[in-house]
């Protein structure tokens, strides 16, 4: 299996406001010395609590921000060493799905326009081709091609996330970064979106970076998992191994369930047919 994404020794710190006028600027080490690899067709879960650095990791992988140290290689290219025009060409190969489907679509554009936006970078694609690709992408995510003319506010939250996924796959990327893709949705909708992501991954052989605070979702969706805590990857490995035999105390504390009485509640839950 070919490696699609690899990080080696990636660190990023952000300055905080000064406490005193001419005092030193305190820094927040959002990410320190993170290394990981992700291959085609594989889903890697990044799990951690708020402030653990998982969103910083996503920003760096997407090239929205540059690391202070380390290398990020996407599809064999160091994205921070690449000249701008070449990075622009490479971008079709890695896309992102955001957490909040209300914020990730421009409210003033029909969704078809937003889905087509990633295609604008490729001068080889003319308008009819773009339209065809948008229609295909809409069908792939379970919407109708005619839905492309609608505006975001005309969709429900779940449908909007489908639109966002359509934009994520329209360039036929090799890597999809999904940052909490279902946590803004109602529980009853989450399954639909996760199943859709699984289907697309199988069809397209996508590598997926699945970022979530929700261990159950990660356990379900991912092949491997990296646990983050205070900017560090504290543990990583196959999901079954990490979650059933956690080595790090932090992972164990995340997995800790309510003790005593409620344990039997859980048992009953699991007996549900």
């Amino acid at each position, binding site marked *: 299996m070919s490696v699609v994404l690899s990080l080696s020794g990636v660190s990023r710190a952000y300055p905080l406001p000064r406490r005193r006028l001419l005092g030193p600027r305190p820094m927040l080490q959002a990410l320190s010395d993170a290394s990981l690899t992700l291959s085609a067709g594989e889903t890697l879960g990044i799990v951690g609590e708020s402030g653990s650095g998982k969103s910083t990791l996503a920003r760096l992988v997407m090239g929205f921000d540059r690391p202070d140290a380390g290398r990020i290689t996407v599809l064999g290219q160091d994205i921070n060493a690449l000249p701008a025009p070449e990075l622009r060409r490479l971008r079709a190969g890695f896309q992102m799905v955001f957490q909040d489907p209300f914020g990730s679509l421009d409210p003033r554009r029909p969704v078809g326009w937003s889905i087509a936006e990633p295609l604008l970078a490729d001068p080889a694609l003319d308008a009819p081709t773009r339209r065809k690709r948008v229609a295909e992408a809409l069908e792939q995510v379970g919407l109708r091609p005619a839905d492309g003319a609608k505006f975001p506010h005309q969709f429900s939250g779940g449908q909007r996330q489908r639109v966002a996924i359509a934009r994520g796959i329209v360039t036929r990327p090799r890597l999809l970064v999904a940052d909490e893709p279902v946590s803004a949705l109602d529980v009853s909708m989450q*399954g639909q979106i996760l199943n859709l992501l699984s289907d697309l991954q199988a069809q397209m052989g996508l590598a997926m970076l699945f970022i979530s605070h929700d261990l159950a979702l990660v356990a379900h969706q991912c092949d491997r998992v990296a646990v983050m805590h205070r900017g560090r990857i504290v543990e990583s490995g196959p999901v079954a191994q990490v979650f059933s035999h956690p080595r790090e105390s932090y992972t164990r504390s995340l997995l800790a369930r309510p003790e005593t009485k*409620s344990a039997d509640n859980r048992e009953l839950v699991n007996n*549900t047919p």
Partner: protein
Amino acid sequence: MYKIRNLSLSFDGHEAVRSASFDIPRGARLGLVGESGCGKSITALALLGMAPASARVSGSIEIDGQEMAAAPERLWRSYRARKVAMVFQEPLSALNPLKRVGDIIAEPMRLHLRLDRRAARARARDLLVEVGIPDPEARLDQYPHQLSGGQRQRVLIAAALSCDPQLLVADEPTTALDAHVAGRILDLLKRLSETRDMALVFISHDLEAVARVTEEMLVMYGGDIVERGPTAQLLADPRHPYTKGLIEARPRLDALTLRADGAPRPRLASIPGSVPALADLPKGCRFAGRCPIERPACAGLRPAVSVLGPGQRQVRCLAPLLPAKVPA
């Protein structure tokens, strides 16, 4: 203690809560579960007489024998904090940023219990100890922004407890918090309810949290209470198709469900479609249109409540699911 009968709350003629009836006995821990827009939050506000001004309220809310549904605001005000108090979702924005923690907790006591400054402060410190905040003396003089998220939620709980209410309503109190902090807040709420013999209405979309805290739960969908029963029983053996769908939509984190490396990913169950807008809800069963076992009559006819078993379980469905095979 609380007796709610046929409580309806409507906006522009659309019922956001449709003739809800339930009791809250002293010391009971009741879960109110549902997704966004199911009516759980405005039901909670109605328990304090704080439904939005644009809502039309009908039905009956009886508190200790006193009918309150149409009670004047002045009477409600005297009940708040002393009989019923509320904890909200977002602990930072729920606390006045310009007031010190001690003053926030002391204000209701000075107003309702007529305590003087010194006595109110002493009580506030005791309350901080009770809700598990270390170094309470120092915290009294701090501002909300100087506390962590979990501590803010504890301060909010302390303020709610200040006048010894008989009922605490907690609306998604842990949604804004990280998992391990949330767990401790849940345990705190449960402990407080037990030690104070105080009823707790716990509102959440999170079944695990509800299972952790409550004894009995109500499931709401589209303004209807679709199912109720003892929490453990109901989660183990849901009879309403919506409840079942909701339970199964969550993947379970459990050694048994973890796949071996390379094993195919199981599909997640999910409820088809999405929750309709208030104005587009079906007239009959609210779940019509998304229900896997729907019958032709469902969309037009509102099912009556069926009592299952020895009277503890109730479900509002024309054709409730059969009992699951519960191991002996």
